[in-house]
């Protein structure tokens, strides 16, 4: 009897798979004449799609905002596999699910999705693949995207530097997920430190490394240690939660958040946060995907395999300055954004900025040639030299600039 049941089940499985094959013999080409209402967006998230803060939330908000603006309905046209760990076979299975649901473009938001997405882009040439924070791509249907968050970091650094002048405390703390081993964290720390020093050359940025992207307990504890043992008066951060800001608030010092406006979490401490506006990219990418006339044209239509924009396009920015900021901070930031928009200056160049406050409240920037050096004296960019890429995409920025100390 039992054997018969087993045989039946096996037969059932076989029949299902065969039926599945049969159903597939006439695949519809998803890209020829796709109406907007048929267009499907797929996404693979590292955390939950129902998150209300953090990295995944920022991307999810970006995708849904972009879809709303493009007249697509996220409820029916967005398919998400969430909580996918950075493992090739899990990512591959997630891609299969999304392609099976008929997605036309698939976004993967975590670094280590890159190999699986690369392989799947080849397997499904009729689907567009787009990967955040990675460096792999092809010439047709697979690109990568990231942003010059270091520019936003520089602005928060300026806000922190002005605050440090006001309080007279030159010690600034920075709780970071990682330090030099990830170009992403490393360039963030450097951008922030250069911003701090452009207004307060005597300031030192003390970095403490968590060794994890998210570790709420230590995020708080490390901030506390920077405040107590290093006498830091401002706490910046590159980690998922607002714990460092909450620690700053409790100790009566100030801080700069990341990813979302953390003034909500620490209203008495928070100055401003470096934030992502992912919808800027997602809108461009989805719109291009809908109009480029086939997945094979996507990379060309996007203008290349790597999308890498910053403050000027609005992909990154700073959250609204809180009342805790030193007076005139906004005027400083406005002047820097104007300068960046001209394209003649960038953060990691051999040109340092200094500022003069005008009587009408505006700020004038003076550019001085000065080499960009590591904190152990190595010259990276000669005085007057052009800005180096922060190399997040290829991952080679692995040094700290002058004024950064590992705590």
């Amino acid at each position: 009897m039992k054997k018969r049941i087993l045989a039946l089940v096996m037969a059932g499985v076989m029949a299902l798979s065969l039926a599945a094959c049969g159903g597939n013999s006439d695949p519809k080409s998803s890209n020829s004449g796709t109406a907007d209402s048929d267009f499907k967006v797929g996404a693979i998230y590292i955390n939950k799609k129902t998150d209300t803060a953090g990295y995944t939330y920022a991307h999810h908000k970006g995708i849904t905002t972009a879809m709303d603006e493009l007249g697509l309905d996220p409820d029916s046209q967005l398919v998400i596999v969430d909580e996918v760990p950075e493992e090739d076979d899990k990512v591959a299975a997630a891609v299969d699910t999304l392609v099976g649901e008929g997605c036309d473009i698939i976004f993967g938001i975590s670094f280590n999705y890159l190999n699986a997405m690369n392989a799947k882009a080849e397997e499904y040439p009729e689907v567009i693949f787009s990967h955040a924070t990675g460096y792999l791509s092809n010439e047709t249907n697979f690109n990568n995207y990231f942003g010059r968050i270091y520019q936003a970091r520089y602005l928060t650094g300026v806000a922190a530097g002005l605050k440090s002048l006001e309080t007279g405390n030159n010690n600034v703390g920075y709780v970071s997920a990682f330090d030099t081993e990830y170009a992403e964290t490393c360039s963030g720390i450097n951008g922030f430190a250069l911003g701090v020093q452009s207004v307060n050359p005597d300031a030192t940025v003390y970095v403490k490394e968590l060794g994890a992207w998210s570790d709420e307990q230590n995020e708080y504890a490390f901030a506390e240690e920077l405040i107590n043992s290093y006498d830091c008066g401002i706490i910046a951060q590159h980690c998922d939660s607002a714990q460092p800001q909450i620690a700053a608030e409790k100790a009566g010092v100030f801080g700069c958040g990341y990813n979302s406006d953390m003034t909500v979490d620490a209203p008495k401490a928070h100055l401003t946060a470096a934030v992502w506006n992912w919808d800027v990219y997602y809108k461009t990418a989805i719109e291009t995907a809908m109009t480029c006339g086939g997945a094979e044209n996507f990379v060309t239509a996007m203008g290349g395999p790597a999308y890498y924009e910053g403050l000027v396009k609005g992909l990154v920015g700073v959250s609204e300055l809180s009342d805790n900021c030193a007076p005139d901070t906004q005027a400083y930031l406005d002047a820097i954004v104007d300068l960046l928009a001209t394209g003649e200056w960038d953060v990691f160049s051999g040109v340092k900025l200094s500022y003069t406050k005008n009587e009408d409240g505006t700020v004038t920037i003076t550019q001085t040639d000065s080499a960009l050096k590591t904190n152990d004296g190595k010259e990276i960019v000669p005085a007057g030299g052009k800005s180096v890429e922060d190399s997040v995409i290829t991952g080679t920025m692995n040094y700290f600039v002058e004024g950064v100390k590992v705590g």
Partner: protein
Amino acid sequence: MRVHIVKREDCPLLKKILLIVGAVALALVLGGLVLLAMGVNPLEYYFKMFTMGMVGNKIAYKAAENYLKILVPLILTALGLSLAFKMRFWNIGGEGQFIVGAIAAAAVAFQAGPVLPTPVVLLLMCLAAMVAAGLLGLFVAALKVKFGTNETLLTLMLNYIALYFLTFLGETKADWNFFLSAESARPTFASFTSMVSFPRILLGKFGLNICVIITVLIGVLVYVYLKRTKQGYEIAVVGDSMGTARYAGMKVSAIVLRTVFLSACLIGLAAAFKVGTAGILSASITDDVGWTGIIVAWLAKLSTVGIFLVSALIGVLQYGSTAAAATFASVDSSFADMLQGVILFLVLAADFFTRFRVVIAKKEVERHG
């Protein structure tokens, strides 16, 4: 009034099936209420879940392949565990044995992959994984036989040692560590898919992995081994009563050592299949089969055929809930996990009622008694 729990002499098959179906139905109703509260039509959700998103799916064959990928390690692990459990040796170390097997298989793939022909490499991977996992099991069995140590605690603790060793391999960039990718600046496991992977038999577009066929064959072998061989009989006798086994002249120690080694070997083979299919190690390579396997073996009442059936159903739950959650904006993977938990919990509860009855004793009975 007093409530008694009385052991059932025999529960008719129909009643058993009704109880279990009832438990699943109750779980689905509970889950359905949560779904309704989230504004999701439960019927649509469950349809998607039980069909694993295959209906209307233009690459349904992929879904079937991915489903079988989940199934193979689960079945083999549960089969392995059932051997030990039959003997009342509580091997909670499936996770650890799986991990050790996976590391061994990956080591062979990296070292032998570039020099030996693929079939040989695959065979060596399986052997290495079986021996490595088997020895880990044997170690605990030997301690139990020699010193009477508690195998539940030992196998449980070894799980964590194995897991942390794997994490260590995954996070330590060094010249000796060939498990990691040389190109990546960050420590990440290297892939060997391009060198070796288990062959697939193409049936149309559907690729039937050879591991699936071997797993079915092993199921038959285990069934025959347990039901038709002297060694299988010995396992049953030791499980029923060590004293009886000794009295009958059986070498109990040898039987325990042999069976636990075999049990862990099968788990090692599960790991080799998993690694050889994924082509890469990872910190969560086990997919928790060491734990889920215990539930499967238990729900299947250690029956070999039952293990295949229960695994198939749990596989549908696992794969189907991911597929279903993907298409509903408000349903995330936590709901899928919760629903699985509720179903398993209620099925285990129903299982209790197949073995026991609740009797409400009246006062008179009490007085007379």
